């Protein structure tokens, strides 16, 4: 059978992917700070509501001001992604738009009505509405942003694990048959909690960085110390929450996207009792020779941890790249077909679809049409494999997945440790604070006297630099998570259903490259403007 789509320009595919990656990465610089700062400003205003102290109103207004700057710069950056769907990814948009478009539309409506309504009350309503209504508006602004995130993540979760749909060969569209299956799929729920909670880490680290800068400059010390206490709590809860929800997400990936898990782990050959790789040498610049190598060089793993992560059992079976390519027996005894078998069935599905459409145009009998539809339906789960030319194409680029996963998890562990120590120091937790102080002072990391080590305003200067250094790393961790999610799904735009080269529009590569560079300039300018305005407002400080 003739291979399909061989004559599409590879440059078009790669520039379209690069453009979507660029715009999504930039969009994700603004969103997590919105979600994270929403929690901080909500807590600060709750303290004002409960204590009626003017100080807490100033704290709340200060963080709301910075929230507003980030919100204004980030608003509508997501719309660019929707432009790209219609132009660069038109086959994708038509093929799955009935399902994918619905959550995006709901997100747009919710964002417009809920966030915009309550953000206006939050900023304009201090002297116009009651304290209780204003507090509710502040929390509802954050909730609106969070609910918007839910719907976007429902759409992305559906790309990773398409459920609740049936293909209509007459309209060439997948149609939603079960809205609840899409909106509340376990994949969507897991992804939502992990993504939102990890955003709270960014909010907490941001507040830490700003507060520590104030402490370094010996100004706004009370605001800084109280904000540090809030950020420490939020950061610790969020760090631990991100680890727990990451474990849930890992199990879901093991179920629905075993190749992604294998790529994340550089697991060439799987089995039972698999260890989780802490570190190994995976060349960052080239795809490893997974068919000939047993495992990456210098591999250091945590025994049984991968099996536990994937299956909740230390003897759980985890397939490697070669197992997925060659086919394997699942723990329940059923057989996972090899990629070659899937490719064959995918070609049958595509041919059946083409034959059905041609036969229908020619007025063929119901019997003929029924036979072709039956072939299509039987092989539809492997439709996307019909576009695969070589089985190596179903293996994602291992180095990016491997290193991005390690960066994300490694930094996640750093944040847990950092916020745990911070909570102990900031809240002077009995016994723990003594142990921590003695340990840290024996290492020369904190002053020796108890009074000095508990006084957040009088610590050695390097303490205040830690969150400032951690802030960009928090963004790196967050973006690394998205790299794992999206690179790990390659070559699929929709898992197993539509590879990138079938999803993309047949555009001139030059035009896609042009818009890539337009976006690069536009978004970099916006980011520079935001950082400039934020720094000016931070230097200005809270208004009395």
């Amino acid at each position, binding site marked *: 059978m003739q291979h399909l789509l061989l004559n599409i320009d590879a440059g078009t595919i790669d520039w379209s992917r690069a453009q979507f990656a660029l715009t999504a990465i930039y969009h994700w610089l603004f969103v997590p700070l919105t979600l994270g700062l929403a929690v901080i400003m909500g807590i600060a205003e709750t303290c004002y509501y409960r204590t009626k102290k003017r100080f807490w109103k100033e704290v709340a207004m200060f963080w709301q001001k910075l929230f507003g700057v980030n919100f204004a710069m980030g608003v509508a950056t997501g719309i660019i992604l929707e432009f790209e769907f219609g132009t660069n990814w038109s086959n994708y948009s038509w*093929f799955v738009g009935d399902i994918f478009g619905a959550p995006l539309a709901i997100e747009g409506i919710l964002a417009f009505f809920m966030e915009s309504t309550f953000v206006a009350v939050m900023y304009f309503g201090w002297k116009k509405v009651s304290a209780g209504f204003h507090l509710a508006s502040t929390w509802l602004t954050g909730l609106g942003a969070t609910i918007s995130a839910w719907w976007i993540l429902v759409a992305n979760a559906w790309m990773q694990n398409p459920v609740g749909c049936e293909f209509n060969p007459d309209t060439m569209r997948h149609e939603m048959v079960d809205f609840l299956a899409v909106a509340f799929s376990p994949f969507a729920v897991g992804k939502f909690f992990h993504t939102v909670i990890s955003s709270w880490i960014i909010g907490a680290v941001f507040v830490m960085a700003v507060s520590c800068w104030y402490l370094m400059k010996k100004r706004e010390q009370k605001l800084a110390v109280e904000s540090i206490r809030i950020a420490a709590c939020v950061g610790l809860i969020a760090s631990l929450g991100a680890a727990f929800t990451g474990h849930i997400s890992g199990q879901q990936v093991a179920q629905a996207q075993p190749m992604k898990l294998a790529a994340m782990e550089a697991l060439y050959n799987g089995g039972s009792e698999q260890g989780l790789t802490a570190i190994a040498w995976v060349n960052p610049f080239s795809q490893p020779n997974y068919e000939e190598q047993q495992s990456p060089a210098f591999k250091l793993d945590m025994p049984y941890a991968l099996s536990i992560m994937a299956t909740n059992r230390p003897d759980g079976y985890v397939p490697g790249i070669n197992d997925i390519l060659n086919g394997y027996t699942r723990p329940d005894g059923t057989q996972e077909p090899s990629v070659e078998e899937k490719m064959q069935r995918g070609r049958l599905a595509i041919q059946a679809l083409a034959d059905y459409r041609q036969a229908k145009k020619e007025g063929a009998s119901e019997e003929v049409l029924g036979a072709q539809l039956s072939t299509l339906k039987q092989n539809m789960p492997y439709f996307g494999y019909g576009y695969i030319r070589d089985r190596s194409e179903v293996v994602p680029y291992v180095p990016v997945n491997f290193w991005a996963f390690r960066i994300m998890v490694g930094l996640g562990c750093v944040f847990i440790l950092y916020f745990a120590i911070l909570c102990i120091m900031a809240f002077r937790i009995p016994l723990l604070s003594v142990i921590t102080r003695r340990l840290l002072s024996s290492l020369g990391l904190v002053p020796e006297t108890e009074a000095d080590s508990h006084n957040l305003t009088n610590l050695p200067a390097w303490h205040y630099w830690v969150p400032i250094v951690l802030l960009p790393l928090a963004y790196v961790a967050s973006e690394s998570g998205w790299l794992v999610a999206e690179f790990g799904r390659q070559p699929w735009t929709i898992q197993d259903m539509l590879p990138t080269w079938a999803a993309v529009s*047949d555009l001139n590569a030059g035009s896609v490259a042009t818009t890539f560079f337009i976006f690069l300039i536009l978004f970099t300018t916006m980011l520079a403007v935001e950082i400039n305005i934020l720094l000016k407002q931070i230097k200005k400080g809270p208004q009395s």
Partner: protein
Amino acid sequence: MPKTNFLHKVFHLYYDGFRNMTLGRTLWAIILIKLFIMFAILKVFFFPSFIGQHADEGDEPEFVASQMLDR
């Protein structure tokens, strides 16, 4: 109509709020410039609907089929 009317309150919330903005004026200017660039320039000149340009209304399935099955 009494000045405590709900619609009056909503109107004055926005009217007074926008009038008294300081930093907000800068942010709104940035938002409006950004939206203009996105919708009046990028969308119009660089991001037309690919299927809308290549297929008549009602013929979209045939066009997409030709893109996905007959290339």
